[in-house]
């Protein structure tokens, strides 16, 4: 048996042979680009494999559908959860249907599901992808490495549901900006958008606005992770510098973007109203929606940021101000979890095995007797009631009506306060009139409603399209009354421009 002479050069010749790569730094850049390239492979792969599906699927542009799916998931990712699987399928179908309008709808749905499942890579146990690439190690040897990544991942949502989220890799591939800083990239996108709008190039402006929105989502995702860590353990997070800085930075960011995007919104609205061309009008209208969505996301982010401080204080109370107990010596995270994770898996398994063997407690072994086994096997299965046990009739107890005022009293008071818009009245006069009705409680209700009207819920009334609103103003006159003290308020009715508001809301 002949075998070729060993071609392996025994030890790597460090000094004699020239380095195969220009240097570790260049190689690292290459590795980064290889990984970026690998992220696109699943998309190409979809088009390559569509031929092997049962049926004639070559009409469909699978990579296009996949990118659209990643877009949809990214845009539907909320702060807490992710995008709903069925919703994504439903939204993908119109695009797929447009690619092959003559095909049956069931086929369109099948394509949508196939693409989504392949982006999750349902078939593999990790539900992810792996690419193999080679690099030169520091000593000049060539090492093949596995790069594991996911494009869309499934995360647990509230109530045991499963949501989809796009990974950072997917967002980076999608936006096409690899290795960039989130904040600066967003600013760049905003500036670009403004310039484009000023020059009237709306088609490009829409693209830039969408990119800005991806960036916004990515930013909130980063923040969400940081806040989650805060909630878990106060000491796990640097609350002196890092987190307050981050929150301040994020709040600045929100304020800045909010101002910026409102300015953009005004500009686009103007563009929308002024332009004559219907295509421009439509695009501008779409752009308005996108920017509004951006603003909504910023607002959501801001409310989260404001919750962070109280959360920290509550956790600190719980965790830090308890009486110190004697230390047991074992810090499970610091002594075990943290050192185990970076170990090679073969060694780490020895530690986790030891923990498992001593940490699971005991199980009483099952002893089976043949006689019992026969009995068990011969027992017919118990018929289960299809509908389950009968529900007992709930015994309802009427809760006593403990309202201070009755419905009739409220109606009487409202009638009293239904003033003409041009004739406000003093509270003292209203009280006197209430007393004349003979109901001693009515005056209290009128006084209460008048005090409430001192700070009317204008925003709510505006949103609900109310036509008039009760208000009360204090002009400094003292209330002279046997039962009530304070200011003799001027109570009046303001008319709201309901039609105008509705038009404004629709805008």
């Amino acid at each position, binding site marked *: 048996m002949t075998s070729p002479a060993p071609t392996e050069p025994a030890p790597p010749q460090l000094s004699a042979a020239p380095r195969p790569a220009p240097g570790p730094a260049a190689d690292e850049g290459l590795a980064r680009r290889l990984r970026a390239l690998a992220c696109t492979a699943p998309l190409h792969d979809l088009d390559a494999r569509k031929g092997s599906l049962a049926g004639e699927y070559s009409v469909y542009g699978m990579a296009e559908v996949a990118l659209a799916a990643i877009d949809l998931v990214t845009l539907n990712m909320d702060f807490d959860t992710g995008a709903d699987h069925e919703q994504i399928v439903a939204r993908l179908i119109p695009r797929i249907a447009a690619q092959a309008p003559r095909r049956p709808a069931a086929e369109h749905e099948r394509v949508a599901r196939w693409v989504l499942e392949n982006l999750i890579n349902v078939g593999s146990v990790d539900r992810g992808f792996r690419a193999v690439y080679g690099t030169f190690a520091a000593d000049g040897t060539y090492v093949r490495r596995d790069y594991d990544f996911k494009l869309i991942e499934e995360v*647990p949502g509230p109530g045991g549901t499963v949501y989809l989220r796009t990974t950072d890799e997917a967002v980076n591939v999608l936006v096409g900006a690899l290795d960039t800083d989130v904040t600066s990239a967003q600013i760049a996108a905003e500036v670009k958008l403004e310039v484009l709008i000023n020059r009237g190039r709306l088609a490009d402006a829409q693209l830039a606005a969408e990119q800005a929105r991806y960036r916004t989502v990515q930013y909130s995702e980063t923040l969400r992770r940081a806040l989650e860590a805060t909630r878990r353990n106060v000491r796990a997070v640097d609350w002196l510098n890092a987190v307050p800085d981050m929150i301040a930075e994020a709040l600045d960011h929100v304020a800045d973007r909010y101002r910026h995007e409102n300015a953009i919104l005004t500009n686009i609205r103007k563009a929308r109203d002024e332009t004559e061309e219907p295509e421009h009008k439509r695009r501008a209208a779409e752009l308005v929606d996108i920017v509004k969505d951006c603003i909504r996301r910023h607002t959501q982010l801001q409310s989260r940021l404001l919750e962070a401080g109280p959360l920290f204080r509550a956790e600190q109370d719980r*965790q830090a101000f308890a009486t110190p107990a004697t230390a047991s010596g074992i810090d499970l*995270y*610091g002594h075990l979890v943290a050192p185990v994770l970076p170990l*090679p*898996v073969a060694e*780490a398994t020895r530690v986790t095995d030891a923990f498992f063997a001593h940490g699971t407690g005991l199980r009483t072994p099952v002893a089976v007797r043949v006689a019992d086994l026969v009995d068990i096997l011969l027992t017919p299965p118990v018929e289960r009631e299809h509908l389950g046990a009968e529900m007992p009739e709930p015994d309802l107890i009427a809760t006593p009506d403990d309202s201070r005022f009755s419905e009739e009293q409220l109606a009487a008071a409202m009638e009293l306060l239904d003033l003409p818009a041009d004739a406000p009245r003093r509270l003292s006069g209203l009280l006197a009139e209430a007393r004349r009705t003979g109901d001693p409680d009515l005056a209290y209700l009128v006084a209460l409603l008048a005090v409430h009207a001192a700070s009317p819920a204008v925003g709510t009334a505006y949103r609900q399209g109310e036509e008039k609103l009760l208000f009360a103003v204090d002009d400094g006159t003292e209330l002279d009354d046997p039962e009530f003290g304070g200011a003799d308020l001027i109570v009046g009715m303001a008319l709201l421009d309901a039609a105008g508001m509705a038009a404004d809301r629709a805008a």
Partner: protein
Amino acid sequence: MSEHVEWSDTEAPAPPATAAVTPADAADAARLVAYGLQPKLQPARDQDYTELLRRYREDPAFARLADAVATGLGLVVLEVSPRAGMAVTAAEDSVFAVRMGDYARRTTADSGDRFLHGLAHLAVAALSFPRPEDLADDGYIGRVTVNGVDAFVRQACRRIEERAEEQGENTDPATDAPGLEAAWRIWARRSATGATKDARRPASSTTGIVAKALAFLTDSGFLQRTGDDGGGTYRTTARYQLQVRDMAGTAAMAELLELGVVPVTDGSASLLPAEDTDDLELVADAGLPFHS
């Protein structure tokens, strides 16, 4: 039942410590150990159990007898108290011990799965008792959720990944040496959950693995399920604290030291971010409790 009658008879005159051990005493001791083998049984709910526990604490000869019965069966006595009951656990190679292969079938074939199941148990303990004080404090009750444990491990993995990135390391494993892959990558790579036909978590996802661990620990009397939020919420029992503190923690530490890994901490601070002492001094001035 006949032992029970005899025991009542002998109990009445309160046997002196010098009295010879009667078969009735042995039966009582064995019954106490048998109660200990039912970890979900609450001592306060069973009068006979409470009575035997009292006798264990007041009668040294009986205590020695019960300990001997437990040892003979291959059990280790962790604590005997009204709160934990007769807390016994399986000694190594005992018939009562839980084996990984019985626990999850895939673990025999797949070393990655074996690690994931073990790590899930470790992470549950670490999150149940996040600070050393919590593990030491007998009154402490930890609370964990399935999703919380998964997020906790992912966070830790992410921190390692970020640190490696900062140092410019390439953490992607070599293709032909699976045993050398860094352990955290196995967890990070595995999907957290997945859609299935019957709306349950896939057993091989990390939340599936954590949920299995929590359910198993609940059967061991170590946890009590309190709700369905966050994939299932649980609180710890006194037994779990004993088990982790006295058995599992030390065993895993010993294994880690044998591997030549000596975790360096000051023994009190836990889950602290890596930072230098300057930061800690600043924190002290600010009146914040980071400097434990």
